[in-house]
């Protein structure tokens, strides 16, 4: 089956080599990380390649943001064979159980925690600004 590599960062040859991907049978599509914040565009893009093996390529998954959103787009397009892969050979594979019972609840916790952080840091930084700039 043909593969699609959405290249978020890094070198496609290194990524392919780390995951034994046949580049002859793989279309590489460069994708700016900013595009991940556009759900309609992302869903349409992935849908365009339904039936293909879908990969999102990065330099190193450990430092890649927005991985849960990538999984959401894979879920919405029913692309259950999608993965986030990197130059080091790491693979974050879409798994429906992990997605529904771990990653989505964790995202909700992240939203909640973020809301608390926004409020807390507005107070804290306002106070720090007063403290450090009063003279």
């Amino acid at each position: 089956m043909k593969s699609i590599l959405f290249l978020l960062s890094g070198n496609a040859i290194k990524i392919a080599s780390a995951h034994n991907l046949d580049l002859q049978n793989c279309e590489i599509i460069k994708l700016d990380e900013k595009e991940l914040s556009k759900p309609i565009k992302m869903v349409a893009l992935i849908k365009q390649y339904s039936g293909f093996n879908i990969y999102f390529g990065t330099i190193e998954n450990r430092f890649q943001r927005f991985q849960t959103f990538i999984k959401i787009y894979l879920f919405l397009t029913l692309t259950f064979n999608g993965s986030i892969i990197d130059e080091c050979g790491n693979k974050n594979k879409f798994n429906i159980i992990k997605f529904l019972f771990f990653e989505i609840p964790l995202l909700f916790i992240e939203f909640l925690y973020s809301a608390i952080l926004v409020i807390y840091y507005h107070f804290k930084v306002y106070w720090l600004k007063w403290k450090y700039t009063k003279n």
Partner: protein
Amino acid sequence: MEIHEKLNVLFWRVGFYGALTEGGVASLYRGLLDAFVQLGNQTAFASSGPMNLPSETDFHLIEYSKLLRNLPEILTFPYNDSSLKKILKIAEKFQPHFFYLHHHDFHYGGAKLKEKTGLPFLLHFDSIEYWVKKNWGKLYFGNLLKWCEKIEVAQADAIITISDVLKKQACEFYQIPPEKVYPVPNGVDTNIFHPNIDGKEIRKKYGLEGKFVVGYSGTFNAYHGVDLIAQATKKIMDNTPNSIVFFIGDGALREKVEEILKHDGVRNKVVITGLVPYSEVPKHLAACDLLVSPIIHNHKDEFFGTPIKHYEYKAMGKPIIASSIGTLKDVFEHKVNSYTIEPNSVEAIVDAINEIYNNPELANHISHNARRDAELKHSWQVNAKRIIEIYQKIRK
């Protein structure tokens, strides 16, 4: 003979940049740290991601929280506290004479580190983050961002801006006393970028042999004016015999550039390399006969940047065609070390290339002067010495 005390310098990069080890900031610190080491100083570097730095530098990774990786901006808030704990331990062990922090949005850790350690605080300020977010990105939590920037600029003992223009803008925006702001433009490693590099291998690789190669190197984004070169490409090829445009780089405007080239029917007649590893950039520049940088203004404000590529261009000893705007007026002098053009003009690019092509004497003259400038004014060693001078001044 020049004598200075050997210093321990702690560098701190706090922005989230993933695992990218290339790009302007990476080049800056690779060059600057190498220069500090060459001058006999000890260096330590703490960063949120991997870096390719000189082996003599003591590197420390201070990672962002793994829980906060799906929403923009917010991940930086708690990083102020978590990174502070770690940087304090590094400072305690390394005993720096001063610390050099790369300014980043929503970060106020420099003020806290200074308060806790009493160390002199030098802030590397390459943009007003509030302005950048408002004009180039998306501005969330604007007040919070301004407060953080105010804290850092108020507490820094010296603010190192990358240009005079940025100094002026920052002083006005945050009411900073001008006497604590020191412009130190970016630089270049003149041993890595030099005129004796052989570009034959790259010419062969991309089918550039026997052609007059017009080169552009850098990020494909709005202010670099890469779309102007794309618009000029057909005319360049029509006006300058046997010429080819060689785009070295990649970025957000890649799609737009490709569209322009396709529309003009020249996509198949140019080369776009995509992202090139930093170590390969000198060879790519060496493959060019001239280098172009048609930088445009930042929205309505004066151009404040000093892109590193300009110093790399100069160090290569190639004829340069560049816009003369903002800070670049100090870098490029018409028919002395470059051929300067008015910004936003496709015609000016085309005419300038044609003139350089037809006037080899002028091309040689400006190339020679550009290289001399790079050696005398723009090397990282010059910048490192300047930073040490600033530290010595604030220490008094």
